[in-house]
């Protein structure tokens, strides 16, 4: 198989400025010679990206995967080594980058197309297709500063794919726009795959890579640790690579490590499945789906309920209930089942967090992201639903109370 992209011994160094000189005098003295630290974002990468296939570049944040993509796109130049690309390259790093907000959609199509290397004649031919794909027929002569973010992104994508690239570089930008347009984007990418164009996707989601890629490469701290079969690469990414980051010293704040991710939350209220709200005292169960990218031992799942004023009303979790979660890998689900919710009228928010048992790592923390509502048909008042039985002596007064 021939390579569409050959990366030969590529290294990329960034100079991180150490300190800024506040005064002009100091700047003049140090002009062009500010103290800096060398940071190697890529070190000696050798990689052949096969033609006509979709390749995933996997790595966590700061692994150098985006830097490598930018080098392939020609946005950055390597400090050492060389990259050869065979065919017309289009990079979808940011949709609508370089739009001039003062110009109309039409003017921006021509400007952006020219930036991407299309001639005016090419553009004139494809103009109608671009506008139709972006679904902007009505607004094409409006200044883009009046566009919604969705319209902006749609036009950006439509122009980018109209270049008819031989090599398409994608940096997880497809997760934008509304759902129907996302589907359209994916369809276009799939069409590119069928047409045998080369696609390189940068991602930190191994699921996506194993689903759509025929080959994959894994980067860690600027070095290539695996390349070839995507299954193998995902394996390497999950097990070998995602080593625990350094443990914080006592007294230091916990370290974020996204190896466990909450992927979805579902409410079930068995007492009243047809209603969108609860009545006080009804049962509720919260189903939390999660995904473990790298094996963990005994993570702690915690759920907290907040009221509309931001007061915490409840907090419980595997630690408070003395549940050992054991060794976890892959997808799973935790269920928090409440026999009754003793809350009255109001909107309530749920915070979910997954941490390590010693509190040193935060795997995921979703602050008040999920909501449920309680509606009280009775006339009880106050924040909580106390189970109350009222009796009185003598009985005559009760008659008056109930009448």
């Amino acid at each position, binding site marked *: 198989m021939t390579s569409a992209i050959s990366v030969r011994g590529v290294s990329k160094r960034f100079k991180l400025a150490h300190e800024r000189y506040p005064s002009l005098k100091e700047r003049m003295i140090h002009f062009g010679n500010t103290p800096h630290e060398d940071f190697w974002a890529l070190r000696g990468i050798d990689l052949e990206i096969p033609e006509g296939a979709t390749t995933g570049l996997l790595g966590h944040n700061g692994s150098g995967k985006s830097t490598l993509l930018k080098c392939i796109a020609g946005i950055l130049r390597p400090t050492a080594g060389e990259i050869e690309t065979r065919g017309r390259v289009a990079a979808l790093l940011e949709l609508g980058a*370089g739009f001039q907000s003062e110009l109309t959609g039409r003017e921006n199509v021509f400007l952006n197309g020219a930036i991407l290397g299309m001639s005016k004649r090419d553009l004139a031919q494809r103009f109608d297709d671009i506008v139709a794909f972006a679904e902007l027929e009505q607004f094409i002569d409006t200044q883009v500063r009046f566009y919604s973010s969705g319209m902006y992104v749609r036009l950006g994508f439509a122009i980018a794919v109209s270049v008819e690239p031989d090599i398409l570089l994608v940096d997880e930008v497809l997760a934008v726009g509304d759902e129907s347009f996302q589907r359209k984007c994916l369809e276009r990418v799939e069409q590119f795959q069928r047409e045998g164009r080369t696609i390189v996707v940068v991602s930190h989601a191994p699921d996506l890579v194993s689903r759509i890629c025929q080959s994959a490469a894994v980067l860690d701290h600027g070095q290539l640790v695996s390349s070839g079969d995507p299954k193998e690469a995902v394996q390497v990414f999950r097990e070998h690579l995602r080593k625990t980051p350094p443990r914080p010293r006592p007294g230091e704040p916990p370290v974020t490590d996204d190896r466990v991710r909450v992927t979805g939350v579902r409410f079930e209220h068995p007492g009243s499945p047809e209603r969108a709200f609860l009545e006080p005292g009804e049962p509720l169960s919260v189903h939390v789906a999660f995904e473990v990218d790298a094996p963990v031992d005994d993570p702690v799942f915690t759920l907290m309920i907040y009221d509309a004023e931001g007061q915490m009303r409840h907090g419980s979790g595997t630690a408070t209930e003395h549940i050992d979660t054991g060794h976890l890998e892959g997808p799973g689900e935790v269920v928090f089942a409440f026999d009754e919710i003793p809350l009255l009228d109001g909107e309530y928010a749920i915070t979910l967090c997954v941490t390590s048992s010693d509190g040193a790592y935060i795997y995921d923390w979703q602050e008040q992201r999920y909501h449920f509502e309680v509606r009280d048909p009775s006339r009880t008042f106050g924040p909580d639903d106390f189970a109350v039985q009222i009796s009185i002596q003598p009985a005559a007064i009760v008659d008056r109370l109930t009448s």
Partner: protein
Amino acid sequence: MDTDMLDRPNRLSTAKVGLWQRIGDIWRARELLVAFTRTELKVKYKNSVLGFMWSMLNPALYLVVFYVVFQLILGSGIPNFPIFLLSGLLVWNLFSVGLAGATGSVVANAGLVRKVSFAREILPLASVGGALVHFFLQSVVLVGALLVFRWDVAVAYLPLLPVALVALLMFTAALGTLTAAMNVRLRDVAHFVELALLAWFWMTPIVYPYDLVAEKAGKWLFLYQLNPVTWVVITFQRAIYGKVRAVKVTDGVAQVTKILPKGADQWWYLWHLGIVIAASFALFVIALSFFGRVEGDFAEEL
């Protein structure tokens, strides 16, 4: 052009890019240069009623102010001062607007530079291109003034104007490319250029005549002559304004004002413009090499 794009799909990206390849890349992106220049002009006057008229109002206002100050209040000995002033001022505006715009051009287009690959030299060049369009618009004011005053230009010197214009464009583009690249890492450069232009204006014979300086500077004249803009300005003054000496007779006493070098023919001007072009070319090569050396990191540094 189309086929050129399609036939040139292979690209090699390395740490160092040869000068000729850079120049080739810029040449291939010439259509983009036009697009950027057009954009710059469009954006500048979008949502304005007078639009391009503003370009012409700038020299018109300068003309009134300098005429009042220098001709009426200070009483300079230059007859038909408006024509003299405009000949040099248009040149100056092209230089200063072009240089200031070019210096900030890469930083101003940070969003684009960070996310898209293209020959970034286009950015400062497009700023100079925009300034050139303004120059032609402002020339309308000059032509208007010539018609109003029924002015006779020095026809023999007119062919020098395109040469002078080329010299100025080359110098502005060379310097602007250099300052644009420097400004990415050190934003002070843009402020410095702004200030330098202020001083530079008075070091150029625009509101006062060149020959007055030549007379007074003595052996230090060569320092004054190091300013490339001077040569372009006096060429324009020679061709359009045309007067080398002005004689004013008051009470029977003739007072002579030296304006432009006496006895300097077309070849004298051409020779000096040639030096400016050669020097600008050298500066351009230096600027492109420097730009090329730091351009590979622009996307990270912005």
